[in-house]
């Protein structure tokens, strides 16, 4: 590795603009004649719309237009879709209810958009939005998935009887049942996986501009995947054909999944721009973010895990009810199925696995992928169950895991996934050593003297990243391919631009991706620019989610680099009168190996563009593109150990130690990877201790709609992490990398809850483990 190449801890190139307030976000975009939008939103969780009167609002100062769903429908704008078809076990397709960008006949959750007001200023738009009179006939609401499935529950979509979206299964139910009935021991656990609000620092925003002269649309938006946004808006929502729609996702301040999806606001602002003749900008306020960003998690699950007399796992049976909210968001159907149940083997050899999943409509915000997406839910239930089993069996939690680890690869699980590489014992050992696991009893005794209850818990997670082989996901119902695309453009002076379909919204791509180029051609990092987030600049792309930018996005770049390197070597061989196979690229020099014959990298580039002396028949230029379609998922895995002290008087938990030993395969920039782990664990601790989304079950009002009531993790809620890595390179991609973006959020919640339940000696505890809940669990 060079000082800027693969493996180097290079400081992030993008941070200067971010930490000096010079980032350029959607709300920073200003175009001539731009006006401001506010949405009229439902104050009710469930109501029929009897009429909308916009007369008073239209007469308010500064108002340009008040537009409703009927007008939108009249212009042929389509309904929002879920892009992954899941079939129920009886073969029937999922029951996708109609999601109009502006509700016409019915509202289904608090925050559902009903109309848009365009005005000279944001406050005028808001004032007028309050003056729009919507005649609602309130209907009974239901917010919890289990309640929504009960007889007599309010019916939310006509085509989803009993609010059931699908009833799906995976694995071998008979085999799992048999394992359970033959078991020496069965551990049974009820699991609640709490609903989370994503809370990206930058709220969602969009600016829609219609150019009448060109009949062309531009959409600036807070998106993790601008090309997908363009595809979906043109192919399904009929906003504009792809060649007439440019989507730009400039700097984006965090997404965590919530900015994958195309929301009503982008569509409506683009349409409103054409309708009104002015560019239309909308920026969510924090309340709108709480109410309308797609939420995460929200599962209710029962687990049965069977063991033989030797404490080997023989079977696993899981039954899950997942709350998808009022509408099916873009990837919502895939999260509690293929991103969840396919990981239920964890790090363990479990011969028989069966999982049944019912997804349900409720009168709450739509639920979709949130950092980890399905894998945190799988990991949480498995690792809570294994820990519980160890307690019931009276064996060490570490040894129970060790005994059941998968040790030979590739390993075909009973739930589709084929693990390609890993060494679970290595991460377990590394974590236990760093945590001084053996010294825990002494620390516990010392804490007892101070009146504190100390506990230790672990979690051995596995997840699947690098989504995904297109053919495989296609066969499972995905509506798109999940490749990535890259173009490497060497300029005539030797500087390099990489155009990538990945999108950075905090991940540090501008640095990591540039390191690949610096490493390959020996050019300084500063001469490499990463271009992303604009469908007019970047050829194609599928975007960033599921920790795919490394394994898939960078693999596409590597493929393009390979082509550029090959051509550069051909040019150099020609100029140096050498054989192409003798050419090497080192430290910015293109050399004939073992001689002093060399050209500067920039000289080769210049020759490619002057084209005065190229090999016969070669095209000028030094620019290559590539698509990369992965051949498998990647399987990051690791072991997290959490140690807590609980104050028995108040129930407050303090995390006194947190150790992470991750195997992400090869690592490009360890500093950025550690940052991803830190952030992920912070969110995992948030889920475990702090973040609880609460809807009033009667009225469907969101009770945690601001930071006064929704507890975001603050710096003093989290400890200083001890992070380390073990490495088994990923065999399926050229860099041997697995992905690191979500592991922290996936692996940490069960470690925290295992530690608290260990400390208090009561296994009955749900997330978030607030002081009140822990106190109750201790004192009954």
């Amino acid at each position, binding site marked *: 590795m060079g000082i800027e190449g693969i493996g180097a801890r290079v400081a992030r190139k993008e941070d200067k603009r971010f930490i000096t307030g010079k980032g350029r976000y959607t709300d920073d975009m200003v175009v001539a004649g731009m006006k401001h939008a506010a949405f009229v939103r439902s104050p009710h969780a469930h109501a029929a719309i009897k009429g909308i009167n916009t007369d008073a609002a239209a007469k308010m100062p500064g108002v340009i237009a008040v537009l409703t769903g009927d007008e939108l429908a009249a212009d042929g704008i389509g309904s929002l879709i879920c892009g992954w078809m899941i079939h129920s076990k009886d073969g029937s397709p999922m029951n996708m209810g109609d999601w109009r960008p502006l509700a016409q006949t019915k509202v289904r959750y608090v925050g559902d958009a009903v109309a848009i007001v365009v005005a000279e200023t944001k406050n005028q738009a808001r*004032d007028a939005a309050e003056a729009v009179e919507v005649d609602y006939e309130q209907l009974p609401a239901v917010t919890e998935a289990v309640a929504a499935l009960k007889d007599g529950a309010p019916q939310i979509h006509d085509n989803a009887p009993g609010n059931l979206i699908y009833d799906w299964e995976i694995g071998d139910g008979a085999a799992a049942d048999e394992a359970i009935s033959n078991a020496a021991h069965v551990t049974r656990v009820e699991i609640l996986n709490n609903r989370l609000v994503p809370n990206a620092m930058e709220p969602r925003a969009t600016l829609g501009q219609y150019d009448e002269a060109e009949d062309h649309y531009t959409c600036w938006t807070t998106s993790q995947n601008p090309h997908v946004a363009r595809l979906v808006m043109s192919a399904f929502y009929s906003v504009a054909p792809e060649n007439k729609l440019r989507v730009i996702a400039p700097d984006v301040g965090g997404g965590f999944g919530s900015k994958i999806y195309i929301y009503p606001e982008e569509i409506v602002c683009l349409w409103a721009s054409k309708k009104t003749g002015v560019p239309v900008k909308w920026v969510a306020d924090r309340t709108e973010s709480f109410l309308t960003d797609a939420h995460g998690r929200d599962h209710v699950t029962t687990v049965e895990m069977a063991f033989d007399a030797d404490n080997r796992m023989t079977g696993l049976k899981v039954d899950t009810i997942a709350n998808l909210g009022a509408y099916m968001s873009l990837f919502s159907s895939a999260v509690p199925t293929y991103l969840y149940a396919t990981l239920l083997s964890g790090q363990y050899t479990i011969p028989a696995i069966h999982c049944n999943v019912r997804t349900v409509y409720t009168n709450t915000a739509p639920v979709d992928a949130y950092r980890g997406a399905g894998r945190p839910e799988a990991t949480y239930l498995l690792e809570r169950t294994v820990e519980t089993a160890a307690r019931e069996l009276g064996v060490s939690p570490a040894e129970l895991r060790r005994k059941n680890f998968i040790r030979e690869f590739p390993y075909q699980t009973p739930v589709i996934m084929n693990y390609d590489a890993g060494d679970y014992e290595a991460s377990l050992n590394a974590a236990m050593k760093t945590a001084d696991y053996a010294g825990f009893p002494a620390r516990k005794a010392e804490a007892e003297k101070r009146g504190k209850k100390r506990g230790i818990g672990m979690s051995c997670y596995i997840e699947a990243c690098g989504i995904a082989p297109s053919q495989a996901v296609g066969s499972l119902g995905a509506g798109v391919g999940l490749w990535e695309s890259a173009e490497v453009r060497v300029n005539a002076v030797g500087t390099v631009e990489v155009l990538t379909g990945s999108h950075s919204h905090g991940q540090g791509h501008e640095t990591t991706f540039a390191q690949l180029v610096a490493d390959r051609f020996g050019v300084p990092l500063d001469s490499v620019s990463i271009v992303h987030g604009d469908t007019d600049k970047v050829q194609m792309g599928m975007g960033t989610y599921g920790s795919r930018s490394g394994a898939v996005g960078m693999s596409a770049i590597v493929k393009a680099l390979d082509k550029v390197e090959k051509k550069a070597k051909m040019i150099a061989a020609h100029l140096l009168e050498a054989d192409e196979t003798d050419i090497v690229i080192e430290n910015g020099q293109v050399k004939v190996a073992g001689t002093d014959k060399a050209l500067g990298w920039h000289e080769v580039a210049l020759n490619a563009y002057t084209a005065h002396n190229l090999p016969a028949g070669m095209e000028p230029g030094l620019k290559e593109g590539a698509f990369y379609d992965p051949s498998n998922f990647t399987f990051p895995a690791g072991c997290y150990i959490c140690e807590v002290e609980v104050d028995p*008087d108040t129930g407050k938990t303090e995390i006194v130690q947190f150790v992470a030993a991750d195997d992400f395969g090869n690592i490009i920039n360890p500093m950025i990877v550690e940052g991803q782990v830190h952030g992920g664990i912070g969110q995992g601790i948030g889920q475990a201790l702090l973040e609880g989304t609460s809807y009033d079950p009667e009225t469907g009002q969101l009770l*945690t709609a601001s*930071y*006064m*009531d929704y507890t975001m993790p603050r710096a003093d809620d989290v400890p200083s992490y001890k992070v380390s890595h073990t490495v088994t390179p990923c065999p399926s991609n050229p860099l041997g990398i697995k992905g690191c973006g979500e592991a922290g959020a996936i692996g940490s919640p069960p470690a925290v809850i295992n530690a608290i339940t260990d400390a208090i000696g009561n296994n009955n505890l749900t997330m978030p483990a607030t*002081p*009140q809940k822990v106190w109750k669990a201790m004192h009954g």
Partner: protein
Amino acid sequence: MYETNYHRAGSVDEAAKLMDSAESGKFVAGGQTLIPTMKQRLAAPDSLIDLRHIADLKGISVNGKDVRIGAGTTHYEVASSADLAAVCPGITSLAGHIGDPHVRHMGTIGGSIANNDPAADYPSAMLALGATIHTSKRDIAAADFFTGMFETALEDDEIVTAVSFTAPDACAYSKFPNPASRYAMAGVFVAKGGDGVRVAVTGAGMDGVFRWEAAEQALGSNFSAGALDGLSVDAGDMLSDIHGTAEYRANLVKVMAKRAVAAA
């Protein structure tokens, strides 16, 4: 935020006059409660009368045990006053745990007590210290000033100008913050002076800040945490919400009271 008109008052008199001529005016001090409320469109005063530039409302004076804090004094100024810490460390430590640094540099003691949020910290100190609230019209004993959740004895055009109290022999404040807002879920200020012990509780009570008289009596004869062992507040009088049930708050009141006594 709805449109409003901003007025900067140079004196208490001018502020009162501006208020009288406004249709629906509001005083603004640090703005840490009022401005967020306006941004959420939950308050819509047509006039904002800014008190921050009135010199008379500023400053802390400590003469022996006599303490006077101007209404416009920020939480940061109270928290960092060495003079005040020397005679009444409970109040400086209380101020140092309000909100975050931004809030402490803007928010004021006058604004906090005028607002009388049931989870705000200062009201407990005012009650426990037996403070007097000075206004543009009169002097009001703290016991008469706080009249219920978000309710005070203030009239619409009445301005808090200062608070004053005699520093106790010993005092301390112990707070269990709401995990989300970090206001008090239960905050207990204990002060021991010549006229006995006062224990005031914020964040937990259904009617806002209150004095826990049974604890005061027990501590009057035995000023130690152990004196509270057999006591408890009635959960029936406590707040219950998504963050804490009444039972949990009742427990916190006792735990925080013991910790305050131990720290005093």
